[in-house]
């Protein structure tokens, strides 16, 4: 009657229903649409074509998408734990891994709605309004194309998925909503700025500039930026590429996503034992 898929699917349905019934996420999507559309209008790239639009959006996207993803994920695993419902759920035949997978899958689907839809809407806007003909479906060097924007959208969602997963890991560690917010902000700042600062520091310490493409791919933002340069912007302006190793960058984004999921699962699975072990040490010290 029950199995891993039943557990994942049941948790997924409940989590997705929660997201759909939370008006704040619709507001978040609308806000993101306004922000992205506004940035594009202010930059003017959207009036020219997809690649100029991506150039305008690249930097703000590195902050906006992680922010939206963290908002989606920072309470994902905290909510049931904080209310005490997780203790009830764990009396049912659903493993921690199934529970985490169901929650994360639902939050990732929500990401597609909250982040993917506004970006797709902006892409449609560019298609309809850009002055030169942007309807050419090709990726030849120097030619703008909706396919390039679709690639950008895919990279955006990969970046968002990594941050949703990392934020969910943070939510598993957090003991309260306040600590979840604090940890989420910390993860956001570390993710958005930390990688670049480390890269600059390593260059300052004498690292070879030739190592940049390899190092860049290690952080979620670096991997996203490298992929966007390699497969979107560079296709039009620098077809020789070499910004980043595609496999390494995609692997990095997928790896961060899996790392977040594993960290979340391990925290929920072993948290009680760790808590008890700490208490044993405390009691030992008190004696």
């Amino acid at each position, binding site marked *: *009657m*029950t199995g891993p898929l*039943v*557990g994942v699917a*049941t948790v997924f*349905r*409940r989590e997705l*229903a*929660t997201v759909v*019934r*939370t008006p704040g996420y619709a507001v978040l999507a609308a806000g993101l649409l306004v922000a992205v559309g506004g940035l594009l209008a202010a930059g003017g790239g959207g009036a020219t074509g997809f690649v100029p639009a991506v150039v305008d959006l690249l930097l703000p996207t590195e902050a906006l998408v992680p922010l939206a993803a963290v908002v989606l994920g920072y309470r994902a695993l*905290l*909510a*049931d*734990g*904080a*209310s*005490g*419902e*997780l*203790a*009830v759920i*764990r*009396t*049912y*035949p*659903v493993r921690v891994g199934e529970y985490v997978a169901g929650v994360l899958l639902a939050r990732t689907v929500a990401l597609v709605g909250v982040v993917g839809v506004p970006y797709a809407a902006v892409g449609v806007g560019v298609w309809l309004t850009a002055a030169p003909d942007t309807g050419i479906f090709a990726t030849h060097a120097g030619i703008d194309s909706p396919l390039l924007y679709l690639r950008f959208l895919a990279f955006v969602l990969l970046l968002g998925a990594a941050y949703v997963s990392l934020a969910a890991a943070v939510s598993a560690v*957090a*003991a*309260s909503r306040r600590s979840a917010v604090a940890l989420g902000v910390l993860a956001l700042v570390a993710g958005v700025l930390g990688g670049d600062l480390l890269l600059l520091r390593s260059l300052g310490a004498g690292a070879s500039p030739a190592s940049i493409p390899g190092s860049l791919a290690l952080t979620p933002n670096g991997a996203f930026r490298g992929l966007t340069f390699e497969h979107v912007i560079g296709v039009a302006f620098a077809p020789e590429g070499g910004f980043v190793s595609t496999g390494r960058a995609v692997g990095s984004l997928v790896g961060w996503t899996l790392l977040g999921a594993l960290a979340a699962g391990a925290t*929920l699975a072993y*948290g*009680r*034992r760790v*808590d*008890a072990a700490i*208490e*044993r040490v*405390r*009691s030992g*010290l*008190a004696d």
Partner: protein
Amino acid sequence: MPDEPVAALSDATRTYGGVPVLDAVSLAVEPGVTAVVGPNGSGKSTLIRVLVGATEPTAGEVRQPGGPGGKSIGYLPQRVPFRPGFTARETLAFYGRLVGDDPDAALERVGLGDAGDRRVEALSGGMRRLLGIAQAVLGDPALVALDEPASGLDPGMRERAFRAAAERADGDTAVVIASHALDLVDEHADRVAVLRRGGVAAAGPLDRLLDDHDAADARELYRVVAGEPGTRAGDEDEPPGDGDERGGEGDGEGDDAEPNVHVTGVSDR
């Protein structure tokens, strides 16, 4: 001849901040209704949480019913934790899908058949507890542990909540109820465990304990063993600041974060 225990604690200890809240408790839970009584802060909620696996003991062992697949433990924390925004039926449907049980039948069992379309946050405290009991017994678990199922309820609702729980107890199923409602304990419990300062002061079949302590009823037994007057009928309002109430709040484990405080006389209301 005593029944085979469904679950058991063996020298189970749990500390918070180095302070023992549950202190070397050994208790065999046999089929039937076992009431866990004791003053606020005596360790009732912690005992229930350790029994169902929601809290890891810092020492000792816990034996729980188990088996491949299925649900062997049903649990209702002191604060009913259901996610807001969902109806009673949707809430039970979520749990029901995990064990292949019917949410409507579960609602009917506790008399909430007409409240299925109401959101959980719109249910009264009593109805939420009944919903919690319906959840706990889904999937026919061998052990059902309920933490203060009658807390804060009017007399009719208290009786209904206790009866709904007690009806699950049979030759194979053990129902453990932590409660201050000693009149309902008298009426429904087969066995009683009286906790005092984290330890078991007395445990066994209710009739035997009454004889052993020359007590007329559970309230008198409570007074003799726990050293406090028992709570009157209807006085089982959720005690503010009950030291037992780490139940369910926090981060799943985090509700156990604060040390328990044994305050003699807190129950004297």
